[in-house]
C-alpha cells in the first residue's frame, strides 16, 4: 500500500491492507510448503483437550515457556541495591547483555552491570586474567564503592575459584586492598533467579559480617526478595516503618536506582543500602524477609549470628499485612499506629464494596513461589478461588505449604498446586479446566491468546505495560492496588461481554 502522510500506520494496521494480506497468502501457498489449514486447525483443537494434557504432563525432559530465569539475574538484582555498587558477572559477556536488557525492559530504566568477557582462551586457561583486568577496568572507569561479583554458568563449569581470583586481583592492585569485592557463586544450572538473589545477598552480608563481633541494637533489617514491584514496595515499606517509628535497614534497596529522574543527568548509582548500614546490619535485633524462598540461605546465615529471623511469603491482603505488622510490633515493641489501623479499615471497606464482583471467581496464578502464595491467600480472602497455582521454581516444600493454605479455607477446596511446571502445562490446565482470570507476567499474554483467559499482569517481568513497578503491592495500600487491578480487569471483561448493541447491551450498565 502507500501510506497517507497525514495518517501514517505502523505494523499494528499496515499489514491488514489487502495488498499485504494477499502477499501473505501467496507466500504461504507457494513457498512455505505449509501443512494444510484444516490439519493445523485439527491439531490446534487437539492441543486443547485432555488427551493432550495427559501427554503434556508426562514430559520429563523438555521445558516449554518456563516462568523462571537463572541465578545471576537475581545476583544483579541484589547488587544494584547497594550504594555505589556495580554488579560484575564473571563469565561470558552475552549473559550480562541479557540481564541488562531484561531489567531495562521491565523497569524502563538503565541497568548497569559489567562482565569479565571470558572467551575460548579463558575456557581453556581459566578466567583469572579476566578477573584481574576486569576489576581494574571497572574500578577505574565507573568509580564504584563496591563491586559485587557473581558468575555465569561458563565460569562455574570450568570451576573458577572466585575467592582466589579476587585475592590475586587485589594483590596485583586491580582494586585497593580494602576495597569491598563480595562474591557469590551463582551457577545457572542450580535453582533460579531467586536462588541467585539468596546467594548474592548472603555473599554481601557475610563479606561485611564475617569475623565481626555483634553488638545488638534495636534496629530491624528488612529484605524484600526478588520483586518486580521493588520500587513501589520498598518505598511503601519505608513509609510503614516511618509510621511505626522503627529504625531499620533495607538490605539491597534498589528502589532508587531503578527509578531515577529524567532531569538531564544519568545516575549510574542512586540510593541503595549504604555500605556502613550493610556492615552495621549485623547488630540488628532481627531480620525480616518478605520472601522466604528468596532468602533461605541468607536467613540461615543471619540466624547464626544471633539475630531473630522472620520470613513471610510475599504478604498481600488484609490478614497477611496484619501478620506482617503484628510481627513488626512484637519484635520492636512499637505499637501499630492508628494511621495504619485506619488504612486497614479503608482496605476492608473497599473489599466490602467490591467483593461481590470477585466472590466465586476462579483464578489461575503463576510466578515465583512466594508471590504465588501471597496472591493466592489474598484471592481467598476476597472469596475467590485460586484454582491453578503454578510455579516453575517452586519445590516440594512450597507445594506442601500451598496445599496447607488451600486446606485452611473453603475457597481452597478445589484448588491445585503445580510445582516445577511451566506455562505450556498451564496452557493445558486452562484449556481443560478453564478459569475466569489468569494472573501472571507478560508471557501470560500468550496463554490469554491461546485459551481466551483474560490476563491480569502481576509478576516479573512485565514488559508490555508501563510503570506498574512503581506501585506497591505490600501493605494495606499495596493490597488496595492489587484489588483495583483485579477489579479493573473484571469490569473491563464485563463490558466487553455486554457491548453488542441490541444483543447484549441491556447489561452494559453504567453503574456496577
Amino acid at each position: 500500500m502507500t501510506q497517507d502522510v497525514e495518517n501514517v500506520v505502523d505494523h499494528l494496521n499496515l499489514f491488514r491492507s489487502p495488498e499485504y494480506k494477499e502477499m501473505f497468502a501467496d507466500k504461504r501457498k507457494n513457498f512455505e510448503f505449509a501443512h494444510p489449514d484444516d490439519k493445523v486447525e485439527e491439531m490446534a483443537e487437539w492441543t486443547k483437550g485432555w488427551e493432550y494434557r495427559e501427554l503434556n504432563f508426562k514430559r520429563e525432559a523438555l521445558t516449554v515457556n518456563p516462568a523462571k530465569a537463572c541465578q545471576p539475574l537475581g545476583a544483579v538484582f541484589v547488587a544494584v541495591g547497594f550504594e555505589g555498587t556495580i554488579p560484575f558477572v564473571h563469565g561470558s559477556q552475552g549473559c550480562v547483555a541479557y540481564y541488562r536488557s531484561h531489567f531495562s525492559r521491565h523497569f524502563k530504566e538503565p541497568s548497569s552491570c559489567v562482565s569479565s568477557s571470558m572467551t575460548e582462551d579463558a575456557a581453556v586457561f581459566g578466567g583469572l586474567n579476566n578477573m584481574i583486568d576486569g576489576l581494574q577496568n571497572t574500578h577505574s572507569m565507573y568509580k564504584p564503592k563496591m563491586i559485587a561479583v557473581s558468575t555465569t554458568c561458563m565460569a562455574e563449569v570450568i570451576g573458577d575459584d572466585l575467592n582466589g581470583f579476587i585475592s590475586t586481583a587485589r594483590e596485583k592492585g586491580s582494586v585497593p586492598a580494602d576495597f569491598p569485592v563480595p562474591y557469590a557463586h551463582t551457577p545457572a544450572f542450580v535453582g533460579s533467579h531467586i536462588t541467585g538473589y539468596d546467594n548474592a545477598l548472603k555473599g554481601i552480608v557475610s563479606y561485611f559480617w564475617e569475623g565481626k563481633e555483634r553488638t545488638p541494637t534495636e534496629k530491624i533489617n528488612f529484605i524484600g526478595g526478588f520483586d518486580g514491584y521493588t520500587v513501589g514496595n520498598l518505598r511503601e515499606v519505608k513509609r510503614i516503618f516511618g509510621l511505626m517509628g522503627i529504625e531499620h535497614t533495607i538490605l539491597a534497596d534498589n528502589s532508587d536506582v531503578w527509578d531515577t529522574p529524567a532531569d538531564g543527568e544519568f545516575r549510574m548509582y542512586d540510593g541503595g543500602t549504604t555500605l556502613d548500614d550493610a556492615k552495621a546490619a549485623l547488630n540488628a535485633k532481627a531480620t525480616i524477609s518478605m520472601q522466604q524462598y528468596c532468602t533461605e540461605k541468607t536467613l540461615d546465615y543471619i540466624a547464626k549470628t544471633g539475630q531473630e529471623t522472620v520470613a513471610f511469603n510475599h504478604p498481600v491482603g488484609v490478614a497477611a499485612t496484619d501478620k506482617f505488622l503484628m510481627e513488626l510490633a512484637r519484635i520492636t515493641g512499637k505499637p501499630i499506629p492508628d494511621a495504619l489501623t485506619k488504612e486497614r479499615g479503608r482496605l476492608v471497606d473497599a473489599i466490602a464494596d467490591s467483593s461481590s464482583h470477585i466472590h466465586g471467581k476462579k483464578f489461575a496464578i503463576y510466578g515465583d513461589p512466594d508471590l504465588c502464595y501471597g496472591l493466592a491467600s489474598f484471592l481467598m480472602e476476597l472469596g475467590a478461588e485460586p484454582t491453578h497455582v503454578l510455579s516453575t521454581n517452586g519445590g516440594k516444600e512450597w507445594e506442601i505449604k500451598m496445599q496447607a493454605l488451600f486446606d485452611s479455607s473453603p475457597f481452597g477446596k478445589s484448588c491445585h498446586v503445580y510445582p516445577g511446571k511451566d506455562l505450556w502445562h498451564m496452557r493445558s490446565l486452562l484449556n481443560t479446566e478453564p478459569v475466569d482470570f489468569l494472573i501472571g507476567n507478560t508471557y501470560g499474554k500468550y496463554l490469554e491468546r491461546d485459551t481466551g483467559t483474560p490476563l491480569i499482569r502481576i509478576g516479573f517481568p512485565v514488559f508490555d505495560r508501563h510503570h506498574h513497578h512503581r506501585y506497591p503491592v505490600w501493605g494495606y495500600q499495596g493490597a488496595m492496588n492489587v484489588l483495583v487491578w483485579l477489579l479493573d480487569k473484571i469490569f473491563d471483561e464485563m463490558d466487553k461481554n455486554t457491548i453488542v448493541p441490541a444483543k447484549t447491551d441491556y447489561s452494559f450498565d453504567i453503574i456496577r
Partner: protein
Amino acid sequence: MSLTVEQVKERNQDLIKEVLEVYPDKTAKRRAKHLGTFEEGKSDCGVKSNVKSIPGVMTIRGCAYAGSKGVVWGPIKDMIHISHGPVGCGQYSWAARRNYYIGTTGVDSFVTMQFTSDFQEKDIVFGGDKKLEKIMDEIQVLFPLNKGITVQSECPIGLIGDDIEAVSKKKSKEYDGKTIVPVRCEGFRGVSQSLGHHIANDTIRDWIFDKGDKHPEFVGTPYDVAIIGDYNIGGDAWASRILLEEMGLRVIAQWSGDGSIAELENSPKAKLNVLHCYRSMNYISRHMEEKFGIPWVEYNFFGPSKIEASLREIASHFDDKIKEGAERVIAKYRKMMDAVIEKYKPRLADKTVMLFVGGLRPRHVIGAYEDLGMNVVGTGYEFGHNDDYQRTTHYVKDGTLIYDDVTGYEFEKFVEKIQPDLVGSGIKEKYVFQKMGVPFRQMHSWDYSGPYHGYDGFAIFARDMDMAINNPVWGLTKAPWKK
C-alpha cells in the same frame, strides 16, 4: 555555531583523548585503536574491529548464542529451536526481537516460544545427551507439525563434551530423515554475536543444503530471488518483499524473518540473492555463489534515495521487464515519499544523530536520515568487521566520529560532549540517554514500532524520528526553579 570539518576533527581527537584518560594504560592503548574520526578518501574508518572486548568495561555486545538463536535461526518459524543448556539464555531472548511471522504458534509455528533443556547440575556432571534425545522425542509427541529441530548450544555444552551432533544424527535417522541441526554457538565462542551468525550460516550449509533437493517438484522462474538477511523486525521483510514483487520478481525465500525451512531448502534455486544484512548472512550468500552459481547483491531499503538506487541495482541483474518494473515502483511511491519529506524535513532538517547498533544499521540508516535533512555525526558497530567499516566509508561524511564496540562510559561521554539531537542505539542505552535529556530511538527493535524498511517503512521511520526529537517532554527535564 556549526563547526568546520577541521574543527570537528580536532574536537573528536580531544574527546577521544579525554575518554581514554579514565582507563588503565593497557586498556587505554587497546581502546584507542577502536576510536577514531573518518577521513575522507580513506578505504576504511581507521578503527580496529572484531577483536575481544575488554573485561569490565561494559561492552554492549552479546554472544554467539544470541547471534545464532536470536538472529539467524530463531525466526525460522516452522522449526523448533531448543535453547540447550541452563534456562536463562532462552528466557532472556524469548520473543524479545520482534521477528514477526504468520502461523499458529504452538501448532505449526514456534518463534515466540521458549524451548529449553533447562540444565540442572546432574546434566552438567553426567552430560546432557540423553536428556536431549528425550527432549526430541517429547517434541515429536507434543508438536507433531514441527518441520525440524535445531539445537542451540549454550556455554556448558562445549565445555562438558556433549556430542550433540551424534544425538542429532541418531534422532534424524529415527524420525525418517527429519532435519535436526546441531549448532555449536556456545556463548564463549568468538568475541560477539558475529561468530554465532557465521556458525549458524555454516550449519544451514551443512545440515540443510547438503541434504539434497527436498522439493524437486518446485518450479522455478527466471525472476526468482531470495531475500537474505532480513529478520522481519516489526514486519521489515514484508515491507521489502512487497516492493520486489511489485517490480515483477518472485521472492522464493525469506532469510530468516517469517521464513520456513522449505524456503531455506529451495533457496539454491534462486537466480539472485538480495542481501540486506551483509554482516550476518554474507557467509551463506558467498557459499551459494560458489556452490550454486547464484550471484548476490547488497541492497539498502532505508529511505527513498537508497531504496531507489537499490531497486535499480537489483533490476540490473534482470531483463527489461524487471527494469521497467523497478521504475514503475519508484514512480508509484515517489509522491508519497515527497509528501513524507515535505512534512517531516522542516521539523528535522540539520538535526544531528549518533548511532551505535549491530549488523548493517550503523551505515544503512544514514541515507534515511539524510533524506530527512539530518546529519549522522557519529557511528559505530557492536560487532562489525573491517569489511563493514570499509562499506561505511560510502555512507559517512568527513569527520564523523567512529567508535567500535563502544563501552558504556565512552558512549555516555561522547554524547554528553557532542550533544546530538538524537541517539539511535539499543535498549541498554535508551534510558541512559533519555535521563540525560537526549531524544532516543531504539534501532534494533525500532522501539516497538516499524517496519522501517521499504517505502511504507520510511513513512513510519520519519514519523518516529520526529516523535522522538520533537517530543514536548524534552522541554520539561529542568524544573523551572532550577533553570
